[in-house]
């Protein structure tokens, strides 16, 4: 029982990182119908920027904020310069962002090298705390779970309770009708691209604190956030949360039961969801 709870908690904390990465992707996907394959690159770049800021200032929060801002702005620039013109052409945008991802990955390899780096975290917080029913558990993983829940709630409030959020929701449902009512969707698109990229950059710092940052992590996180978004449903923040929890729990449970098949089962989850509910768990069919 103790192990079951422990593995569940591991799955949930892993899901926290997946959720942070995938929430940005689901916003961009859902609203803009744009498949950005540079999302994993944004994650890794955010991690590296956070690593540099934390190394220079010793302030973790500043690193997370700086990385989110920098990657968000970069995302905005990429959207304005490269994507805006071809926004209605899925395949072209996918190929452009794939190109950005490949170039970005190689630039990061040249700058930060191929060895593992990790965002520093105050040693005083690198301790275990007593969790009822589980025993000693790393505080850092609980904090990341907390950060993720707070971000999730803020995002939900932002989408559901603000005027901008209602425009975004309208855009998710029908961007052409939204434009026809006089909303400048181009500005909304730019803002969403900024927000989505900033979330990826922030996730990079959070993930880079828990796991090492390395070339190759970009592809891994892109793939997992695609799975999370497909399982949860495009454009839905609660969907991204449900998808992340499912992917996190399934991958951790299979690591215990059948470690060899951990990856296969995670992707099988996506296949099953697509077969039963093609629009994703929280997605709405149009």
């Amino acid at each position: 029982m103790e192990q079951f709870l422990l593995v569940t908690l591991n799955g949930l904390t892993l899901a926290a990182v997946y959720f942070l990465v995938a929430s940005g992707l689901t916003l961009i996907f859902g609203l803009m119908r744009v498949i950005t394959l540079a999302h994993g690159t944004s994650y890794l770049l955010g991690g590296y920027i956070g690593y540099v800021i934390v190394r220079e200032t010793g302030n973790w929060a500043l690193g997370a904020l700086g990385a989110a801002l920098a990657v968000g702005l970069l995302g905005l620039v990429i959207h304005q310069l490269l994507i805006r013109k071809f926004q209605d052409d899925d395949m072209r945008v996918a190929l452009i962002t794939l190109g950005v991802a490949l170039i970005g990955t190689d630039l990061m390899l040249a700058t930060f090298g191929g060895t593992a780096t990790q965002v520093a975290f105050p040693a005083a917080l690198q301790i275990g705390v007593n969790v009822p029913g589980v025993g000693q558990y790393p505080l850092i993983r609980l904090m990341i779970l907390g950060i993720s829940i707070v971000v999730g709630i803020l995002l939900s409030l932002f989408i559901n309770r603000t005027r901008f959020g209602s425009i975004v929701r309208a855009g998710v449902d029908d961007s052409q009708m939204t434009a026809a009512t006089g909303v400048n969707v181009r500005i909304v698109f730019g803002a969403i691209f900024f927000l989505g990229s900033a979330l990826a950059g922030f996730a990079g710092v959070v993930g880079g604190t828990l796991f090492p940052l390395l070339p190759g992590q970009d592809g891994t996180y892109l793939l997992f956030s695609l799975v999370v978004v497909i399982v949860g449903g495009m454009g839905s923040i609660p969907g991204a949360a449900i998808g992340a929890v499912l992917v996190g729990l399934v991958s951790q449970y299979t690591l215990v039961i059948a470690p060899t098949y951990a990856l296969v089962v995670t992707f099988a989850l996506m296949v099953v969801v697509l077969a039963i509910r093609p629009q994703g768990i929280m997605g709405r069919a149009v």
Partner: protein
Amino acid sequence: MTLKTKKGMLSAIAVCAAIVLTATGCSSPANDGGTSPAPGGEAPAGSNEITIGVLATAEGNLAFGMDEAKAAIGVAMAAYGGDVDGAMIGDTKVNLVYEGTDGTSATAQTKAKKLVENTGVDVMFGPVSGDEGETIVQYALTVPDVTFVNGSASPVSMTLEGAENFFRFHGDSAMWMGGLGDYAFKDKGYKKIYSIAEDYSFPYDNAGGFFSEFCAAGGEVNGNSWVPVGTTDYATIIAQIPADTDAVYVGLGGADAASFLAQAVTAGINKPLVGGSIAVDTTALSGDSNIAAAAVGTITGGPVPGADFSTPTWDTFVADYAKQPNAFPSPSIFAVLYYNSFAPLLQAIEASKGDLSDNQAALRAALSATDWASPTGQITMDANRQAIVDNFLTEVVEGDGGALTTKNINEATGVKQGTVVYQRFDGCPGS
């Protein structure tokens, strides 16, 4: 504007996911890495001439393999007054032709065929990686009139395939653990070890070599976790380590090893670690992540001695290596293994006076008779043309300024190859 449905989007996403998989999972296509001149040249009349084709990685994550191979060959050829392009070994003119690979078996096969069938080399030397090695042995079986000397490929099976023309002058990946199992049981007093290793052929052999010795000494394996390559979250695996474990065997490499070591710190593993041959190499130790608390004290085994190793032959080799173009601060595992393999080839050419008649019988007899004091100890050959070598046990220590480095703790001499090609095992191998 065209209206799009989410259904259409999903198929587009699926296509894009496939693109991502292709882009991140496959290496770039190979092209010609070597630009060396054609062999032949102006051989003095009446003397022998031997052309050696060299395979090494020039692209991909082991792209430095070619530089390391040339540095090793440069050191060996300098002893005869030659260089990386050729030398006179006695009365025999030796020419070298280089071909770069990307570390995949497909490219290795193509380049080996090019060297043998187009260039017409007499001897093949290389390759670097294990996958390439397994392919090259299969190819060697089809061209019995060419002699093959391995570079640094280490799968156990390579010298058990019965290729009479294939020679390996260094240990296989099971032998790289030689002496570590005994040391862990007898000197460290570990009775029960939990094994965490990646699920593919190299860790099977590497862990198999360690645990067969450890179990034979009386040790017990109280659990195995074979994890997929690329696993980043080890919290659940770490949670499975039984409380009565004396030590944890870490058969991970590269990014996976770095992930594990970092999480071993945050999860507070208080068990000593035993590393596979690539778990605590420079890739893991030189990174800027918080692994010192877990990594320091880890014992491991391999063909390259620790940073504090010093013998006259080793020191000479390191000094000669440093003079080569593009040399690292200290020779990598590839430079050491390529040198230890190329020097015996030159010695055999000298001993056989470059005689390639009768299916290169004299050269092969001389290769089999190798008994050489290499920089890393005495090298002799067994009946399968596999070297009997010394193996080094090292321990991770904190060096000057807190940087992690390795210290030599023991040397196992005369390590011989077993006859077992390891598969995934539970408990002790073969149990």
